[in-house]
């Protein structure tokens, strides 16, 4: 991304830093190295870093690659690559617990955290499976396989129909039950006092 006002951007970022911390003693990281002229970064093109550029902005799916997969294909992928650890129908296996169910459990005494109950955005499935699964050979699955198995997990959770096709367009549109389940950090949330005598 190009910007004619790079310096303005940097100054803006520094302003955020002060606003965020409000800290009079913030270390002067930039000024400490300001006298050095070392600039050794080598320009790299988007094409040359494409193999690394795998993050998905999950709220809108930005970064999702071309490709597609069906729930049925996902079941086959799951049973070949995932079932050994996660168990049949994603109900839990020898290494990992259930990846289905839990919707509605967060207001009970036992919160069942699964992709279906917890993820606010469906592309989290694609991002995480592609980068980290299967655990013994991560980043080995094709985009089609990842779309497919994402769709299968969503289907097991009742969030897409059995004939769903997952791709860069459809996956971000899946409405996740916990989308509005998050609140931003509001701490400090306690106001403990320093009692020294007769405290009980």
């Amino acid at each position: 991304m190009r910007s004619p006002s790079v310096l303005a951007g940097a100054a803006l970022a520094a302003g955020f830093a002060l606003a965020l911390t409000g800290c009079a003693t913030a270390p002067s990281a930039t000024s400490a190295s300001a006298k050095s002229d070392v600039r050794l970064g080598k320009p790299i093109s988007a094409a040359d870093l494409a193999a690394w550029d795998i993050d998905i902005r999950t709220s809108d799916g930005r970064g999702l690659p071309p490709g597609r997969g069906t729930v049925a294909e996902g079941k086959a992928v799951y049973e070949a690559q995932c079932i050994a650890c996660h168990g049949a129908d994603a109900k839990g296996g020898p290494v990992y617990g259930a990846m289905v169910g839990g919707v509605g459990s967060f207001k009970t005494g036992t919160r069942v955290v699964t992709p279906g109950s917890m993820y606010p955005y469906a592309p989290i499935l694609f991002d995480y499976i592609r980068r980290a699964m299967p655990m013994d050979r991560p980043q080995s699955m094709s985009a089609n396989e990842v779309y497919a198995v994402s769709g299968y997990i969503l289907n097991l959770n009742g969030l897409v129909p059995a004939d769903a096709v997952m791709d860069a367009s459809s996956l971000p549109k899946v409405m996740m039950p916990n989308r509005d389940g998050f609140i931003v950090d509001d701490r400090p949330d306690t106001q403990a006092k320093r009692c020294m005598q007769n405290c009980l």
Partner: protein
Amino acid sequence: MSRIVAPSDTSPAANSAGPFGDRRNFLRKGMAIAGGAAAAGAGLAHAAPLAIPDSNKAFGKPIAETDYGMPSKYEADVKRRRTDVFKNRQNYSDWSFTPLADQHGTVTPNGLIYERHHNGTPDIDPATHRLVIHGMVRQPLEFSMDDLMRYPSVSRFHFMECSGNGLTDWLKAASKTVQQTHGLLSGGQWTGIPVSRLLDEAGVAPGAKWVIFEGADGSAHLRSIPIAKAMDDCLLVYALNGEKLRAENGYPLRLFVPGWEGNVSVKWLRRIKVGDEPWYVRGETARYTDPMPDGKWRIFSFDMECKSVITRPSGGMNIQAGNHEIQGFAWSGKGSITAVDVTTDGGKTWKEAVLEGPVMNKSLTRFRAPWNWDGRPTTIASRAVDSTGYVQPTVAEIAKVRAIVGFVQHHNGVFPWSVSAAGEVKNAIA
């Protein structure tokens, strides 16, 4: 109450000058060393006659041509340990604890820094490792480790703590030792390059607000953080406590985010991408979030709030009646420690402990308080205060505003140890 800080080089007189240490305590010390009934009935036991030790009468081990020193064989029990409460069914996404009761000073030895990995420790050759910065920048850049070593470096003392430290011990005493209750905590001197330096070189675009950091491990672990924090005090770290990072701590390069939960300090760092919104990845939505009332979850709770724990005496130890020096750690992700209070009567009364200097920003701080235990069952605990004025709360106070249910992060509650009449020290969280 004014802050009490002893210099790190303290004399016995300075030791006895604090609110805990009066002259009478100091004079009594000799009386109580033998402890209990023996001291009361028969006076001090006499030491046995001394023989010349074998070590005085033989060659020592010669100096090797090259060597890397290791701990004494007599310290073989001082080791990191995996959890013995919340046992994972694999040991790749797992964790191990620092033996805090055996840590002296505020620097955790590199072999004892706690571990939390999401797919084990990768083997990365620094000659082939690369760091990339891209996204909302003027010019995407790639750096080799040789490149990075040529930049001006800074070294800073900071603690690092996992957000999950203490998660097994909110409402019941599940863990036995302070290693298990609090050992996802370490401290040290981190050396590297300010993140701001390299972001400035790449040229951050207007409108950039968040940055994602991604590892080269088998989980490609990643977290997004506000760019303001990245520009403020975050470091690209390649060394810890005077030597290059150990493999399990991110060799050859990691992010270090002072004062924030450990999992944002991404190890084995390969990529930095600048953006205008959070990415909401699995780690920051489904894992490192806090259950809140009404079925909600608190997200982006980065700060590790002010906390303390007594490490001596602590769970699993046996003590005798008489004089002791209560010792422990205090730390805050939002500043420096200004005071630590200690109770030895189960919370009825508290007295201010002595802080051992230097007391540094977002760093482990040691405290100590003399204690003459009368041999009756009691409970001891510590409570820290930081430079924002925040006072470490009890679990009961935290439970009023959060939902303590399931896998709960960010436990900074006051942590009690009970002492039985037999001198057994036990976890007394509930």
